[in-house]
Structure formats: structure tokens, C-alpha cells
């Protein structure tokens, strides 16, 4: 056991997977000598050489596009996009080839790519550096979308992602990178992709979130238990797509009430999808409208006011109380 930050845990998983399988390689901007701008790939080039940890030219479409070819050829590239906002530069390759080449060839070619990229706000960065656009990827057939929330699940999910034969968008909540340390077992650990985790069982209401928003959610849950005797069931989605509808539905079937929290913009976002599914499968158990606390439908604001854009625990507490009182 060692106490690691998320960025250290990611570094560990990368190193372990490169050690385990010589076909695992990495591509990205400044990931070599520099170890990545967040140091997630620190020392990996030193350990595994320039051929396996490749600094690339400054072209995200180029990175993803060539990684696709490498994957077709049997290599297993882990791609780092420096900030998730710059995945837009590679949108065409992601949507047209990475997500579809397997389908296009009816399974002749696998595309085992993990596209790692830091997302979300909270670090006082400039424009385009705080995006949460996981809904784009969830809406794109052929991708799996994974979002860890802490050091331990980051390491275990990343390892699982690297071993998968299908393309994965691995969104790393950068606000969590160095936010806290957590015990991480010495031995490599794997967590199944596609499963949500019930972080705390409760009977009054279901609270669903993921990534950095798990922090205010946990705060809210604790406050509500301590101060108001409200017993919240908290679910960490972990995989955005394919979504673990079963776990969500089972919870809401029990509690009858639900709140969803995410940073990403609202319209056609992940919360909309969760609401649609719950409406489909547990409609008769719903006792109040499902509420979503999400990013607003505006660009992520500049950092002087970004704190106001991000959902906080007070608002979650109010929403939960409102929903419980709803009739």
C-alpha cells in the first residue's frame, strides 16, 4: 500500500501496463523528457525508451490518426491529449475512424486505443483548458467513456482500459490530480469497465455523479446525514458509456428520487441521458422530478469567476431537500 495522488496513480498504472505488455506504447505532446504538463508520464520515457514513449509534433488529429494505424497494426497506443479541449482538433479521426474502424471492417481490425486527457475546471486555467465534453463521446457510437474519481479507481480503471481491445476515452478530472492521496495496493488492480459504484447506500434519494464532482456530492451527503438525517444513496458512475443503467435504476426504484450532478453543459448532456433512461425503466417509482445540477449552456467562464460555474455542496443539499419535499 502506498498513499498516492491521482496523477501518481495514473503514472503507476501506465508504468505497470508498459511493463506487462511490450505492445503498449504512448504518444502525446511533451510526454517524454518533460513527463507531460501534469507529470502523469514522468520518467516513463527514461524507463521505456523514446520508441515506446513518443513525443509527437503539435497536432492532435495527427496523434489520434496515427495511433489508429498503430492499433490496426497490433500496437496498443495510449494517447495523451494535453487538455481535453484539444480533442476537438482530433474529432474527425475519433468519430470517423477510432470509433468506427472495427465496425467498418466487421471486426477484422481492433482499435485498442486509450485516449487519456485531463478534463474539467477548478484549476484557474485559461479558456479551453476546463472543458467537460464527455457527452460528445457518449453520443458517439463505438467509444467507451471512463471517468475515475480518485487515485485508486483511476489506476484500476486505466489498467483495465489499456487491456481492453476497444477504443476508450479516459477523462481524467484534473482538479483531482493532486487534490488528495489515497491508499493504492502494491499489486496491479483491475476494475471492470461499465459498472457504476454505489459509494454509499441510502434510502431517501439517489445522487449520481462522477469525476471531480464526487467531492461536493460527498460533502453534501455527509452534511445531510449529520445535520438533517437524510439518507442519500451516492453513486459514482465511473463509466459514462456504456452506462450502467441497471445499478442506477435499482437505486432509484428503491429511493424514488434522484439528483444528477456534473460539470459538463446541460443540454444533451449526460444527466439528460440518465433522466431519459430512468424515465423509461423506473417511471412508476418516481416520486419527484429528477433534478440535474450541471454546467450551464455557456462556455466555461474565465477563471476569476469559474468557482461560481461549478456546482457546490450547498446547492446539492438544497436540491436534495427540495426534491425530498416535492409533491
Amino acid at each position, binding site marked *: 500500500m502506498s498513499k498516492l495522488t491521482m496523477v501518481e496513480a495514473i503514472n503507476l498504472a501506465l508504468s505497470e501496463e508498459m511493463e506487462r505488455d511490450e505492445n503498449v*506504447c504512448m504518444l502525446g505532446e511533451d510526454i517524454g523528457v518533460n513527463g507531460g504538463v501534469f507529470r502523469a508520464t514522468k520518467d516513463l520515457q527514461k524507463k521505456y525508451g523514446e*520508441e*515506446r514513449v*513518443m513525443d*509527437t*509534433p503539435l*497536432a492532435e*488529429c*495527427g496523434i*489520434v*490518426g*496515427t*495511433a*489508429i*494505424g*498503430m*492499433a*490496426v*497494426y*497490433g*500496437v496498443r497506443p495510449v494517447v495523451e491529449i494535453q487538455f481535453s479541449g484539444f480533442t476537438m482538433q482530433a474529432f*474527425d*479521426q475519433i468519430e*470517423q*475512424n477510432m470509433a*468506427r*474502424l*472495427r*465496425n*467498418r*471492417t*466487421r*471486426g*477484422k481490425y*481492433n482499435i485498442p486505443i486509450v485516449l487519456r486527457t485531463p478534463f474539467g475546471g477548478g484549476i484557474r486555467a485559461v479558456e479551453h483548458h476546463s472543458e467537460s465534453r464527455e457527452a460528445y463521446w457518449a453520443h458517439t*457510437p*463505438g467509444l*467507451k467513456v471512463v471517468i475515475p474519481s480518485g487515485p485508486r479507481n483511476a489506476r484500476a480503471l486505466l489498467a483495465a482500459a489499456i487491456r*481492453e*481491445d*476497444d477504443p476508450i476515452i479516459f477523462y481524467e478530472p484534473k482538479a483531482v490530480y493532486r487534490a488528495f492521496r489515497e491508499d493504492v495496493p502494491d499489486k496491479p488492480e483491475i476494475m471492470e469497465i*461499465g459498472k457504476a459504484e454505489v459509494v454509499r447506500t441510502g434510502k431517501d434519494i439517489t445522487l449520481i455523479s462522477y469525476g471531480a464532482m464526487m467531492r461536493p456530492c460527498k460533502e453534501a451527503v455527509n452534511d445531510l446525514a449529520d445535520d438533517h438525517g437524510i439518507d442519500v444513496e451516492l453513486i459514482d458512475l465511473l463509466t459514462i458509456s*456504456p*452506462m450502467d*443503467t*441497471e445499478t442506477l435504476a435499482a437505486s432509484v426504484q428503491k429511493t424514488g428520487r434522484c439528483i444528477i450532478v456534473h460539470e459538463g453543459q446541460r443540454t444533451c448532456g449526460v444527466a439528460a441521458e440518465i433522466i431519459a433512461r430512468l424515465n423509461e425503466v423506473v417511471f412508476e417509482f418516481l416520486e419527484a422530478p429528477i433534478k440535474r445540477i450541471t454546467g450551464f449552456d455557456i462556455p466555461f467562464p474565465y477563471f476569476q469567476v469559474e468557482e461560481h460555474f461549478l456546482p457546490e455542496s450547498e446547492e446539492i443539499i438544497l436540491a436534495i431537500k427540495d426534491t425530498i419535499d416535492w409533491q
Partner: protein
Amino acid sequence: MAFQEHEKKKTTSSEEVVSPNTPSAMHTSPIDLGHIEVLQILNEHGEVDSGLEPDFSDEKLLEVYRSMVLARAFDKRMMTMQRQGRMGTFAPNIGQEACIVGQVTSLTKDDWFSPSYRSFGAQIMRGWSMKHLMRLWAGFHDGFPPPKDVNDLPFSIVIGSHVLPAVGIGMGMNYKKKRDCVLVNYGDGASSQGAVSEALNFAAVYKAPVIFICENNGWAISTPTKKQSANEVLATHGVAHGMPSIRVDGNDILAMMCATKEATNRARNGEGPTFIEAITYRMSLHTTADDPKVYRNDEEVKVWESRCPIKRFETYLTNKGILDADSIEKMVTSCNDEAIQARDAFYAMPPADPTEIFDHLFNTIPEELQKQKEEYLKRLHQKGVDE
């Protein structure tokens, strides 16, 4: 061949140039960009430049010739089928047979090929049956996967989007220390896509064993090359990214064979990518959905008829004594027959299986998607579509 020499010259001159992050003084002498060699071995009249004439075996030459004739026969058959409503929209390769067939003549089974949609002749040479290609263009899912043992990407529909993956395959070869190569073709239109520039850059930076064939056939649907680029010498794109670059007469099969042979040799020797601009002409429609009469005049087309790559090669092979009027006729007949047989075999194939569209997106179909599949199967059932 000339363009290797040129490459040497260029390297020398670029070594003189100050490397900005190397602490050396600023050079003020002009930087010589060198030349782009232009290669033609058989001229329009089928006359050979004896100084450049390669010594391919008669069998090889005949095999290549037959491939060109077959490509044209296939094209014609497809066009008939399309006009009869029994084929989807497709892009004829007529007039470009030398370029298309010639480019793959130096590839082995271990090499990879990433074609554009206008590459019938090349795909057949690579081992795609005509029946399979018909299936593909008729909109059947099972037409898309390349045949077993054929290392190709399926043809690219999104212009330029297949070039980066091709470079990635080359990078994979380097990664796995294989001495094979990848050949990718794309059009003058595609040369405008930023992703194609990025592909050239990555290939050069990583010395990936890639051969780029830029098929400059004068048109991108209705857009002539001169509106596509202010520098009509598209080979300059290769130069800009630091790789040996050449312009080739794409209607001259010998030039195409020689240029790609040299490029594949370079690639296998670890010398990195090569850029080949092939000058050719799209004789027919852009696709069967297009009407070129709207935007180009017949005279231009007529002039290019006189540069026909097949006729030119016939003249050469006849002069060489390998072909005569009789064997040409036989060859044409046998190719037409083969295309007709392919058509019949294609018509005899089973209808599309509508149920499998969920099955290949992921290695294992996720539970949620499985539910959608069941919903879909229910729909098929309600419609009375047999499974």
C-alpha cells in the same frame, strides 16, 4: 534514379541551414530548395526512354497489363450495373489505370495499402475479388472487410481521413521492427485537407516507411487543381515536410512501377517516407452521381484520351514483341468475361443480413447495446423481415 540523387543534394544544402535551437550563428546565404525530378519513361506515343527503361520480366509486364485491362473492364461492368439500378454510387477509375495499378506493383503481402475510393485496379491486384468489390459498392456490410490475408484498410470515403492511419501503420512497422511498408493514395483535392499535411509531417518526423501517392487527376469533382492550390506542383508538399519527392507521369505505367519500386526500397531500408505526385486524368464521371458536362469541356477530355495509359503500354509491349493485335483482343475479351462472371457470382450472393449491424462495433456487445439490438430485432420481426 534521379530523385535519389536529388535527395542527397537536398540533405547537404539543408545541413547548412541554421538549426534554430542549436547554438550556431545565423546564416544569411539563401537556402537552395533544389529540384523536383519529373519522371516519364514511356511518352504519350508509347516511345520508351531507353536510358530509363526498366528490365521487368515479360511475365510481370503482361500481368500488369492484364490488371490494367481488367480494371477498365470492371469499371465498365460496374457502370452498366449502376445504370441498371443494381449497383450503388461508385467512382470510376477509367483513364487512371497506370497510376492505380502501377503503384501497388512493388508491394508484397506483408506490406499494407490504404486506398482512396478510386482504386479498383489496385485492390484487385492486392487480392480483392471483383465480386467482393461489387458487394462493397452495393452497400453490403460484408463487402468492407479486406479479404483474409490482405493487409489493406477499406477504402476511404472521408477525403484524406485514411492518410494518418496509414502513417500510423508505418509507425507500427517501425515499432515492431518490421521491414515492410505502407502505400497510401489520395487525390489533388485531398491534398488540401489539413490532416493530410499532418500525416506527411508525422511520417517524416518518425521516418515511417510510407509511400504517399498523390493522384493529381486534374479535378476534385468540379474543382480543377489550379483552384485547389496556388502551387500546382503538389510534390512540393512532400518537400515542405522534408521527404524525397518526385513528380511522375501517372499515365506511364513504367514510370509508376519504377518510382514506387524505388520508394518501397527506401522505405524497407529504413530511409523513411517518399512523396510521389502522379499526374493523371479522370476520364469519366467523378462518381455515377456526377455530371462533368456541367463544369468541364469535352476538348480537354479528348486531349487526354490521346494519353491513354493502356494504349500507350500496348504500343510499348507490341514494339517489344510481347503483344499483338490478336493477343490484345483476346486479353480484352477474357477480362470482360471475367467481369461478367464476377457480376453473375455477385448476383448469386445471398441478400444482406439486417440482423448483424450491432455485432461488430465492439469486441463484446455491451449489455445496453444488446437491449437496443433486441428492440431492433423486434422491429424486424414486426416488419416481417426474415432473419
